[in-house]
C-alpha cells in the first residue's frame, strides 16, 4: 500500500480512445462495470467507426468509449472528459479539442512513433512539443510495460501486446480506486478455455494497477463515492439489451410466446443477438432475407397467436412501411422497434439521431395510425418495450417503439425490476361466437369491437368455428368482409384513428422546481439526459426553466396541450430539424421553437443549458 493522497471527487468523465483494434469498447465496458459495482451512478457513450476496421492508426480508425460516473444521479456521459486515455496519436488528435483545461491525458508513449504521428496528422510529437501544456499529461510505454509483465507467459508478442488495454484499465482503476474484481471474473469466464490468455489478461490488469500504485508518476489518486440510489439490486445494462429483455418480459406478462422476425442492421442488430440467446425461454428468432420479411414473418406469427416483433433501424423502417399498413388493417398486435441512426439513406450508420419521428407517425400510405413511443434512457428501453407490448396486445395494433444509437449502445445502472411489479396484461383469444346473425344464430364477427378499447377480437387459427378471412382490402365494420362501400370506408378510417387516439396514456409530468418558470423545454427520447442535466445547469445559473419529456408521441398525453399553453416560451431540443416541433405546433398551435443539432452525437448538457438560457432571456435562439 502506498501512502499517496486519495482525493474525493463527485463525478468523473473518462474517455478511453484508441485504434479500432485496441479493444477500447471492451475496456470502457469493463471500467463501467467496475464503477457500477461500487455503486456509482453512470452513463456511457460508445463511439466507433462505421467500418469494421478503419485503417490502423488513422483518425478515422479511432474507437472510443466515454463514461461519466458519479456519486449522484447522472443522465449523460458528460460533455468533456476529465481524463483521456489515448492509446495512440490518432486517439489523442481525435479527442484533444474536447478536453477542458487541466484534464488528465494518459498516453501510451510506445505508440507515438514518427509513422503513427504522421498518420494522425501530427508534424511534431505532442507529448514533447508543449502543445499539451494545459493538460496533465502522463505518458508511459504501456505496450512495452505490458509485454514485459507478460514475459513469463507462453505468448507471441502480438498476443502479449493485445493485453495492453487491460494494463490501461488497471492504471485507471487504480487512479479512481475502482475495484477490479468484476473485470477479473469477466476475464475468467471469457477466457476460461484459454488459460494462458486468461492469466495474461489478469496479469496485465494487475500490472497496470501496480504501475499506478508504485510508479510514482501520479501525485494523487481519486475516489468517487457511491451514489445515493434507491435500494435494490442493480446491474449495468445497454439500451439494446434492455429492449430485448423488455420484449421478453412483456411477452411473459401476456402469456404469449415471443417471435422476432428481423434482418441485421446497425445499431439494432444486438437486439436480435440478445433474443437469439433466449431459446430456453421459448423465444423464436427468425433472421430472414430482408426487412420486409422481418415484419411480415412477425405478422404471420402474431396472426398465429404469438407476440410478433420486428427490430430495425432507419432504412429498414422505410422498407417496412407497406407491411405496417397491412398490420393496421389486420388490427393484430405487433411491435416494431426502430433504433434510430444518422440519416437520410445509409447516412451515418453508427451514429445517433432522432430524425425518424415523422416517418414513424406518418410514413405509410393512407390513413394508417400507429401508436408511437420512445424510450428516454438505456434502462428505460425495458419499460418502454413492456409498454409497447401492453398497447399492442390490449388494442390489437402495431406499435412503434423508437430508441436510438445512443441508447442502444450506451449503458447505465438498472435496478432489476420485480417481475410482479410489471403491468398485468393477460391476453384472451376469441373462443366462440360473439354475436348473433339476423336469424338469431350465434356467429363470429371478427371486426366487432370492444366498446372500451375498440379492439377487435383476436381469433387465432385452430379455434373451432371462428374461421374467417382477413386482408389488406378495406374491411366492412363488424363483419370484416371486404367492403368498397364509401360510408363504411369513412367509418373504418375513423374507427382505426379513434382506437389509437383513445389509448389512455399517462399525463405529461413537468419538472418545474420553482413552479414559476415561464419557459418550458420539452423533448422526447434519448435527449432526456442532456436536457434534464442542461436544465439543472441553467437553473444553477439562475434561469427558471421547466422540463417535460414525452414518452408517448402517439397518442400524446391528454394534458400536453394544457402544459404547453401554460408557458410563455417553449423550446424543443431535437437531434433533427424539428420533428416534434411540427407535431406540437400543429396539434396545439403553440409557437414551439426548435433547438436543432444533427451531428450524429447526443447533445451536451452545456449546449442545452446555453440554449435554454438564451431562449429564456431573449425568446429566440
Amino acid at each position, binding site marked *: 500500500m502506498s501512502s499517496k493522497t486519495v482525493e474525493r471527487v463527485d463525478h468523473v468523465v473518462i474517455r478511453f480512445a484508441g485504434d479500432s483494434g485496441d479493444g477500447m469498447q471492451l475496456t470502457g465496458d469493463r471500467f463501467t462495470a467496475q464503477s457500477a459495482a461500487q455503486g456509482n451512478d453512470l452513463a456511457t457513450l460508445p463511439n466507433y467507426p462505421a467500418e469494421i476496421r478503419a485503417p490502423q492508426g488513422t483518425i478515422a480508425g479511432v474507437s472510443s468509449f466515454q463514461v461519466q460516473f458519479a456519486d449522484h444521479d447522472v443522465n449523460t456521459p458528460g460533455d468533456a472528459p476529465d481524463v483521456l486515455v489515448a492509446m495512440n496519436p490518432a486517439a489523442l488528435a481525435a479527442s484533444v479539442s474536447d478536453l477542458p483545461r487541466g484534464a488528465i491525458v494518459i498516453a501510451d508513449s510506445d505508440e507515438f512513433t514518427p509513422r503513427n504521428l504522421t498518420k494522425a496528422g501530427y508534424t511534431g510529437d505532442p507529448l514533447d512539443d508543449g502543445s499539451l501544456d494545459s493538460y496533465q499529461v502522463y505518458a508511459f510505454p504501456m505496450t512495452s510495460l505490458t509485454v514485459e509483465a507478460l514475459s513469463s507467459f507462453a505468448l507471441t508478442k502480438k498476443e502479449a501486446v493485445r493485453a495492453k488495454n487491460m494494463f490501461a484499465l488497471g492504471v485507471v482503476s487504480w487512479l479512481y480506486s475502482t475495484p477490479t474484481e468484476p473485470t477479473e471474473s469477466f476475464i475468467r469466464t471469457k477466457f476460461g478455455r484459454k488459460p494462458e490468455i486468461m492469466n495474461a489478461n489478469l496479469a496485465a490488469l494487475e500490472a497496470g494497477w501496480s504501475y499506478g500504485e508504485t510508479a510514482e508518476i501520479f501525485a494523487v489518486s481519486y475516489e468517487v463515492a457511491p451514489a445515493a440510489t434507491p435500494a435494490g439490486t442493480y446491474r449495468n445494462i445497454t439500451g439494446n439489451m434492455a429492449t430485448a429483455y423488455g420484449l421478453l418480459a412483456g411477452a411473459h406478462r401476456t402469456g404469449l410466446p415471443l417471435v422476432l422476425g428481423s434482418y441485421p442492421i446497425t445499431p439494432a442488430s444486438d437486439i436480435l443477438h440478445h433474443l437469439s440467446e433466449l431459446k430456453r425461454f421459448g423465444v423464436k428468432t*427468425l433472421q430472414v432475407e430482408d426487412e420486409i420479411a422481418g415484419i411480415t414473418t412477425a405478422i*404471420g406469427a402474431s396472426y*398465429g397467436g404469438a407476440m410478433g416483433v420486428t427490430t430495425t433501424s432507419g432504412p429498414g423502417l422505410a422498407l417496412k412501411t407497406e407491411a405496417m399498413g*397491412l398490420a393496421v388493417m389486420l388490427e393484430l398486435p405487433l411491435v416494431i422497434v426502430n433504433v434510430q441512426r444518422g440519416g437520410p439513406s445509409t447516412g451515418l450508420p453508427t451514429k445517433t439521431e432522432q430524425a425518424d419521428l415523422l416517418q414513424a407517425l406518418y410514413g405509410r400510405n393512407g390513413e394508417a395510425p400507429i401508436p408511437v413511443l420512445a424510450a428516454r434512457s438505456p434502462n428505460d428501453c425495458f419499460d418502454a418495450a413492456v409498454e409497447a407490448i401492453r398497447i399492442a396486445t390490449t388494442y390489437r395494433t402495431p406499435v412503434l417503439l423508437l430508441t436510438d444509437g445512443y441508447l442502444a449502445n450506451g449503458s447505465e445502472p438498472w435496478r432489476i425490476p420485480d417481475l410482479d411489479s410489471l403491468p398485468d396484461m393477460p391476453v384472451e383469444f376469441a373462443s366462440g361466437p360473439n354475436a348473433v346473425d339476423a336469424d338469431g344464430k350465434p356467429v363470429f364477427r371478427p371486426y366487432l369491437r370492444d366498446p372500451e378499447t375498440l379492439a377487435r377480437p383476436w381469433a387465432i387459427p385452430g379455434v373451432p368455428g371462428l374461421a374467417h378471412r382477413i386482408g389488406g382490402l378495406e374491411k366492412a365494420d363488424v363483419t370484416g368482409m371486404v367492403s368498397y362501400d364509401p360510408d363504411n370506408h369513412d367509418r373504418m378510417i375513423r374507427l382505426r384513428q379513434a382506437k389509437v387516439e383513445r389509448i389512455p396514456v399517462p399525463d405529461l409530468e413537468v419538472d418545474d422546481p420553482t413552479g414559476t418558470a415561464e419557459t418550458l423545454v420539452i423533448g422526447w427520447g434519448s435527449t432526456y439526459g442532456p436536457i434534464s442535466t442542461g436544465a439543472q445547469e441553467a437553473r444553477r445559473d439562475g434561469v427558471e426553466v421547466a422540463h417535460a419529456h414525452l414518452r408517448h408521441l402517439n397518442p400524446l398525453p391528454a394534458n400536453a396541450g394544457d402544459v404547453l399553453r401554460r408557458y410563455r416560451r417553449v423550446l424543443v431540443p431535437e437531434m433533427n430539424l424539428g420533428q416534434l416541433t411540427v407535431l406540437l405546433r400543429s396539434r396545439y398551435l403553440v409557437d414551439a421553437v426548435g433547438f436543432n443539432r444533427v451531428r450524429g452525437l447526443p447533445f451536451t448538457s452545456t449546449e442545452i443549458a446555453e440554449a435554454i438560457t438564451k431562449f429564456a432571456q431573449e425568446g429566440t435562439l
Partner: protein
Amino acid sequence: MSTTNLHLDPTGRRPGLFGVPTLPEGSPKLTKKDFTSTAEVRWCPGCGDYAILAAFQSFLPELGVPRDNIVCVSGIGCSSRLPYYLDTYGMHSIHGRATAIATGLATTRPDLSVWVVTGDGDALSIGGNHLIHAIRRNVNMTILLFNNRIYGLTKGQYSPTSEQGKITKSSPMGTVDLPFNPVSLALGAEATFVARTVDSDRALLTSILRQAAAHRGTALIEIYQNCPIFNNGAYELLKDRDESAARLLRLEHGKPVRSGSRGVVRDGDGGLRIVDLDELGPDAESRLVVHDAHAADPSLAFALSRLESPEMAGVPVGVFRSVSRPAYDDLVRDQIAVAVDAAGGPATRDDLAALLAGNDTWTVG
C-alpha cells in the same frame, strides 16, 4: 394413391401433417361443401381459377384435418382472392409477401396446415425473394402458384413468365425479358418438392396436392392456369385432347419418361432430349430416362424442367422432385426444445428473474 399417414411419425421422419390434429375419430367426413365459404366467387367467367378452386376444395377433406386447423395465405392478384372462397382461416395479405407471412405462421404454429396461394406476378415478380428463401429453408407450406403468364388483376401487363415477344398493354412491341421457368428456379433454390400441373387436369392436380400434403417442408406446385380475359389460350396446346397427349410428359417416379410415341433420352450436352420412340430402335423403352423424383441430386429434375421450352413441344407435368430434408420450422422448434431440455425444463418465472439479473449485480440499501 398414397396411404401414408400424413399426421403421425412412427418412423422418426416427420410426415407432412406431423403435429396437425386429425378429425376426432368417428366425426362425419368433411366434404367439398364444408370448404366452401359464403363469399361470392369473383373471377371472370371461364377463368381457370374456378377449376383449381374446385379441385382444391374437393381435395381438402382428404387431409382429415379440422377445417379450423387449415390456413390459406395469399398475396394480391386474381388468384390471391382464393382464401375468401375457402371456409378455413385465411389471409389475403399484400403483394408478394404471402410466403414470408406463412413462414412466420408455420414457425409459430406446428398444429396448422399452411397453404399459400399466389400468382406468377405475386410469387415470381415482387415476391421472388421470399419465394426462393422459403424454398431453401424448406418451411412447412404448400404453395399453389397459379401461372397464367400475365398480371390478371392489374388488367393484363406481362409477367415474369410471359413468353418473350408477348404483346401486352405494357409491351406494345413485345416483351424483351426472357421468362423464368418456375420449376428450374425452385430447383436452383434447393427445392425439396416441385411439381407442375394444368388447371383443367383435376385428377393430376388432386394427386399432386395429395403428394404435396404428404411432404414435410415447402412444396411448390406450378399450375398452368388460363386467363381468358388477358391471356386466353396460353396453354391451348396442352388442353386439346390430341395435342396434349403428345405434348404432356407425365412424370412418374420409377417410370420411363414418355408421352405417346415419344420419349426422353439423355442428350450429348448433359441435358435431355425428346425423341420419337421409333428412332431408338427395338430396345427403345430401355433407353428412356427413368424418372427418379427422390434422387438426392436435383440434376435430373432440373434437366427435365428444361424440356418445357421451346413452344411446349414436351412439357413434363407431375412431381419433378420430392426428397426429404428437415423443415426450417421444425428445426427452429427443435432447437428450442433442446435448449429447454438442456436447461432442465421450460423457463420459469425465476429463470426470467435470473436472466434479467445477469451475473454482474450489486445491491444498494
